[in-house]
């Protein structure tokens, strides 16, 4: 981890965050080694110290750390204090940081939080030329439209996209073979097929499910949103209408929720109360072969191997696309992460951050090697690389990324997610009426929107 050596003493006399950073930075200067090929502009410059925060992920975080270390070697006048926090806590640390003037200079933003930072003017616009693009159009062309829409505003880019991926349907091909199906041909392409296939895959022992054919994630609100969002859009529904009123309870919304509930209620292929999933491992039921199909983000091979070595060795799993309302035209939710810059820091630090980000993203193949199969947001510069092409089912991941729809961009995203999560729990666990539950959820969201508007 890049930070000061343990002998750095915090100066208690200075109150400012910058003083704090300088103290840490001075000791860390000793850690910087001179690397091959210094860039000209780095010589003779004043020392710059920055704090950079990201969330913890066993593949993504070490890669970021590695790239930042490399940058510091090439630019010895720059000291970056690299810190990471649990995924769910990063947003909170950032809020407290902004509230108290101790937020980091640069950080990774989960993209559903972008509207909040943008609305409150906390992140500063990026100079795309400094990032290596000739124009704003060149920048937006290099990324999937769904993504760019979330990171740009009024003709300016505010986030430099990192990873961006969609969900695939992970199949256990061994289970398919057991019931006489062929995963390559019989994978479900619409929701009815999903139900039928799941029903065939289900094994019950009395009232207890030995194996559930398919399962929706029930453990956390973000996953409820991510998995339900595409169903709603596919049914022609929308989260909000033009006036900002929540419309999840209209006919399309009810249809979408009925589809979602059908796996358990109509096809009897799912037991919503029976899951061993945890926050870090929502796909645990699938790993332990208690479930044959599960919608999930790209799963690193090391994780599959760690959780189910047999599955890895026998390679009896496959990723396919999300089912759709129209056969073969399914799509999932896509979301990602941006590198952003704190708007409250001085210009010289912002420039250094631009250079840092440009450097981090200058080797996308290296990123892929370390963090596969998390796909990058960028279109160019890596997809045609042989190492990338050799990855099993890489086309599925890229297709999921390109087809997918964005999560709703709203300032009350968290309230929306919580309301939907409650509604889904009521419907699936307490057998509530779908329309009633959705009406309640919509009312909650409208209240939240009204409260936000009042400010």
């Amino acid at each position, binding site marked *: *981890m890049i*930070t000061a050596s*343990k002998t750095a003493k*915090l*100066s*208690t*006399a*200075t*109150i400012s965050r910058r003083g*704090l950073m300088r103290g*840490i930075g001075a000791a860390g200067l000793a850690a910087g080694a001179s690397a091959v090929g210094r860039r000209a502009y780095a010589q003779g410059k004043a020392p710059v110290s920055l*704090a950079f*925060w990201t969330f*913890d*992920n*066993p593949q993504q975080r070490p890669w970021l750390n590695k790239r930042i270390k490399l940058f510091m070697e090439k630019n010895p006048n720059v000291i970056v*204090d690299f*810190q990471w*926090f*649990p*995924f*769910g*806590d990063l947003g909170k*640390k950032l809020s*407290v*940081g902004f*509230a*108290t003037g*101790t937020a980091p200079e640069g950080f990774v933003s989960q993209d559903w939080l972008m509207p909040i930072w943008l609305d409150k003017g906390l992140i500063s616009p990026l100079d795309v030329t400094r990032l290596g693009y000739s124009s704003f159009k060149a920048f937006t062309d290099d990324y999937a439209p769904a993504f760019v829409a979330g990171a740009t505003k009024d003709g300016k880019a505010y986030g430099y996209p990192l990873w961006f991926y969609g969900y695939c349907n992970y199949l256990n091909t061994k289970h398919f073979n057991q019931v006489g199906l062929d995963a390559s041909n019989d994978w479900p392409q619409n929701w009815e097929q999903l139900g039928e296939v799941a029903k065939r895959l289900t094994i019950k022992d009395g009232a207890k499910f030995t194996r559930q054919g398919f399962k929706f994630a029930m453990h956390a609100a973000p996953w409820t949103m991510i998995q339900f969002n595409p169903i709603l859009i596919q049914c022609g529904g929308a989260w909000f209408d033009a006036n900002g009123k929540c419309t999840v309870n209209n006919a399309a919304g009810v249809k979408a929720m009925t589809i979602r509930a059908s796996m358990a209620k109509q096809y009897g292929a799912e037991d919503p109360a029976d899951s*061993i999933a*945890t*926050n*870090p*491992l929502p796909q*645990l039921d699938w790993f*332990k072969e208690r479930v044959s199909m599960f919608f999930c983000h790209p799963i690193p091979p*090391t*994780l599959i191997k*760690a*959780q*189910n070595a047999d599955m890895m060795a026998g390679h009896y799993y496959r990723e396919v696309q999300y089912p759709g309302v129209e056969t073969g035209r399914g799509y999932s939710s896509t979301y990602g992460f941006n590198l952003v810059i704190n708007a409250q820091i001085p210009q010289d630090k912002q420039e250094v951050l631009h250079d840092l980000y440009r450097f981090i993203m200058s080797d996308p193949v290296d990123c892929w090697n370390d963090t596969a199969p998390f796909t990058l947001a960028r279109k160019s510069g890596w997809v045609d690389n042989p190492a990338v092409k050799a990855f099993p089912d890489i086309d599925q991941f890229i297709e999921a990324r390109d087809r997918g729809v964005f999560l709703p961009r709203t300032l009350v995203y968290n309230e929306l997610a919580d309301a939907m999560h409650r509604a889904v729990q009521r419907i699936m666990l307490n057998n509530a009426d779908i329309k009633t539950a959705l009406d309640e959820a919509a009312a909650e969201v409208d209240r939240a929107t009204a409260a936000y508007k009042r400010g």
Partner: protein
Amino acid sequence: MTELRAAIIPPTRLIRRSRPLLGSIALAGLAFAFVVPILWMTTTSFQAGEKMFQLTTEWIPSVWHPENYPNALSRGAFGRYFLNSGVVSFAVMTGNLVFCTLAGYGLAKFHFPCARLILLLILSTLMLPLEVTLVPTFLVIHKFGWLNSYQGIIGPLLVDAFGVFLMRQAIVSIPSDYLEAARIDGAGELRILWQIVLPQCKPALAVLAVFSFRDSWDQFLWPLTVVSVDRMRTYPLGLVQFGDDYGNPPTEQMAIAVLATIPVFLLFAVLQRAFTRGFGLSGLK
């Protein structure tokens, strides 16, 4: 003074003629029922990663995996985390012992006006959940320049209203006549405190020591807020971070949890003599 001591240490025992062995078994059964989750945690900490989520528990592991412990420790700077927790908890324990006893004594035995009101006010500090006072407390610590330091983590925990209340209750039952007599005899207030009050509330002091150590040992929300650098993290932050990293076997997380119970348990084992002294005279043990 000697009469005082005699009154505290029960000179005779009320003989329980009624079947002590049956009582022992019943009590042991009850204790076992309580302890089942801990047994589960300990057993699981020695299992291989995939055993963690099996709904039928294997109480005695068929294959032992003691390497979970060194593996778990190596995945994060746990040595440092435990050290930080230890320093913080020890300081908080000491602070509580000193200040809570003083304040408890003051509230119990000195009748200055509005003592009841002050007690209510002190208790009121427990009525607001920590989340709401998180940001302003952070700002106070920030003003002192104590972010990311031991003082910063210890600061708000140094005196706990529970402790004040506990000591007040413990001291209230000491008959005031002893104190008055000592005062008439010319003893100074500090001497009264040291020689009369403290020995009589040893059990409560032991309880306070264990509780304040344990409460600060487990603190999560406050260190999460005030610490932004890895080397100052306390172990609960490390434990949560560890669990959130899906690459780590969850059985190793149980291993760290088991390790975390040891220091407080040791402290309790040492101090519980102070208030179960009376048990020792039974002769039945």
